[in-house]
């Protein structure tokens, strides 16, 4: 069993970054995730593992530091919250275009604009449908516990390098700020320079290797036919993600007639709501997407095929993931939304009430 600690989600993430063998963290402070860089600076990983930690002058600089670092084949990571992630979007699009691996943490807060420092899930569209310009996808993981704030870090690095694509961990202010028991994984050593060259030397700028092709990192291609091909190649990669990387969790779904679909902190609230509803004899289960892209459409379709009577999506926004639920369910069952925004957190009782009025009785 790994080391047990009581930690904030943000701290667990920061510790996991060190343990995952990251080579560089570049970030800019913003609530509710500043604990990440504070923890890293206090921990001095540059002494522990040799990892670089740098407070950038802006999120714009931070994401471009990631671009440069990722372009050299090393493991780089940043974290921010909604407004800062918006500022990074140009760089994220460039990284997707240049096929660079990296890990991006968004501890979401409410918007639009400067919004609020309170928790939110209103960056779902931004994370899963684009955000930056151009046709691209991020792999998006949604942690629902402090444990997953830690566990998803090595997973995100594995996926980022497997697909040479940015991976976003889409968290929120609840998961980032709350404290829970977490079992920390054993440290994974950082790659040596020789290992980086061996693993990534065929594409990364590690300095020209005698007798080998030099490497160029770019998202630019002025020839329309080869740019079109690049887009097709990217989409072939996304297709593979859709086939191989869909992750989700089901709770109490075996006998369920109704389903709540929720991720992240909303799924924790919904889990409690299901307990309350079941105590009243309502056969309801929870489907928790863990990857928001690729999305578990098939899981929902299977429930429809087995006669599901309705789906309630619960989100801390005005209803964003519901569009994906509708894409899966189509007109074959009922789909409704319940949520709060602006930092207001739904209660389990409200969720049960919404289930009764919007799905069962509605």
């Amino acid at each position: 069993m790994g080391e047990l600690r009581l930690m904030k989600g943000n701290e667990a993430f920061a510790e996991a970054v060190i343990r995952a063998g990251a080579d560089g963290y570049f970030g800019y402070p913003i609530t509710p995730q500043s604990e990440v860089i504070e923890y890293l600076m206090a921990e001095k990983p540059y002494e522990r593992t040799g990892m670089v930690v740098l407070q950038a002058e802006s999120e714009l600089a931070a994401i471009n530091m990631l671009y440069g670092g990722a372009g050299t084949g090393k493991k780089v990571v940043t974290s921010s919250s909604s407004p800062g992630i918006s500022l990074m979007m140009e760089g994220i699009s460039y990284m997707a275009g240049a096929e660079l691996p990296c890990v991006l943490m968004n501890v979401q807060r409410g918007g639009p604009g400067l919004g609020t420092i309170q928790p939110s899930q209103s960056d779902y569209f931004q994370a899963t449908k684009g955000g930056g310009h151009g046709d691209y996808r991020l792999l998006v993981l949604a942690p629902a516990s402090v444990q997953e704030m830690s566990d998803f870090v090595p997973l995100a690095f594995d996926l980022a390098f497997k697909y040479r694509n940015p991976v976003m961990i889409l968290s929120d202010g609840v998961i980032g700020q709350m404290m829970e028991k977490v079992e920390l994984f054993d440290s994974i050593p950082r790659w040596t320079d020789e290992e980086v060259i061996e693993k990534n030397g065929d594409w990364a700028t590690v300095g020209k290797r005698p007798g080998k092709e030099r490497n160029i990192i770019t998202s630019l291609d002025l020839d329309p036919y080869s740019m079109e091909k690049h887009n097709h190649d990217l989409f072939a990669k996304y297709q593979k993600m859709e086939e191989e990387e869909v992750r989700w969790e089901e709770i109490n779904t075996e006998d369920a007639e109704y389903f709540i679909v929720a991720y992240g902190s909303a799924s924790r609230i919904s889990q409690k709501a299901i307990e309350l509803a079941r105590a009243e004899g309502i056969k309801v289960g929870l489907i928790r997407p863990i990857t928001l892209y690729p999305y578990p459409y098939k899981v929902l379709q299977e429930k429809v095929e087995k006669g599901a009577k309705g789906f309630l999506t619960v989100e801390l926004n005005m209803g964003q993931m519901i569009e994906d639920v509708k894409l899966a369910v189509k007109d074959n069952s009922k789909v409704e939304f319940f949520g709060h925004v602006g930092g207001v957190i739904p209660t389990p009782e409200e969720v049960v009430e919404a289930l009764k009025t919007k799905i069962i009785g509605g």
Partner: protein
Amino acid sequence: MELTADKIKELVVKPENKVYTKTPLLTDKTLSYCPGCGHGVAHRILMELVEEMGLENDTIGIAPVGCSVLAYEFMNVDMQEAAHGRAPALATAIKRLWPNKFVFSYQGDGDLAAIGGNETLHTCNRGENITIIFINNGIYGMTGGQMAPTTIPGMRTSTSPYGRDVQMMGYPLKMTEIVAMLPGTYYVSRQAVYSAKHVRKAKKAIKKAIEAQLEGKGTSFVEIVSNCNSGWKMTPVKANQWLEENMLDYYHLGDIKVDGKLVKEIV
């Protein structure tokens, strides 16, 4: 005997007749620059130095957005292409993660002084151990000749068609003097490449800049006052004359900071 091109080649191109060979660190791709543009010369001296100093396999360069966006097609070393203005941020991470590599950014004036002004300042202020080559042609060449922060007063561009009016459009920004004032920079110089004499001096300055990085001294920064004959709407010859008569009055050539100390009064 008929003197065909091939025949001339055969007669003339002999090792003993050769006085100059292109460095293999420039690829055989035809440069995308307009004939007469200073970018090509700047590429050449930089790559000659990388070769002469034995850094071919230990160099990571960064191309900007600007006319030199395709620099990676011509500079035959490992290269990254940055978003507009962000080359110093890339360089920061690359150098910190690979401290034994020679890392340079190559940036235009719009890139370095306008959209990337903040990255330039903070990278120099942190004293990142990198080398910045700054091509100042007083204009946005790539996008068709718009005003840059470096456009000199009265100069006509497509967005200052009646000449730069400093009351309305602000004053030309001397980034090189600004970064020289920051404690993080170790060597700061302003050079030009419009004549053989200037090319030789510029090459010496870039060599000093590379040496500073190899010795781990902090940021080295070389501005090259260059021309944009297309954007300025002049012949290459006229552009070089105009550069000498107008740009150099505003942008004085020479070392500004050597061994971490200002060697010139900043005006």
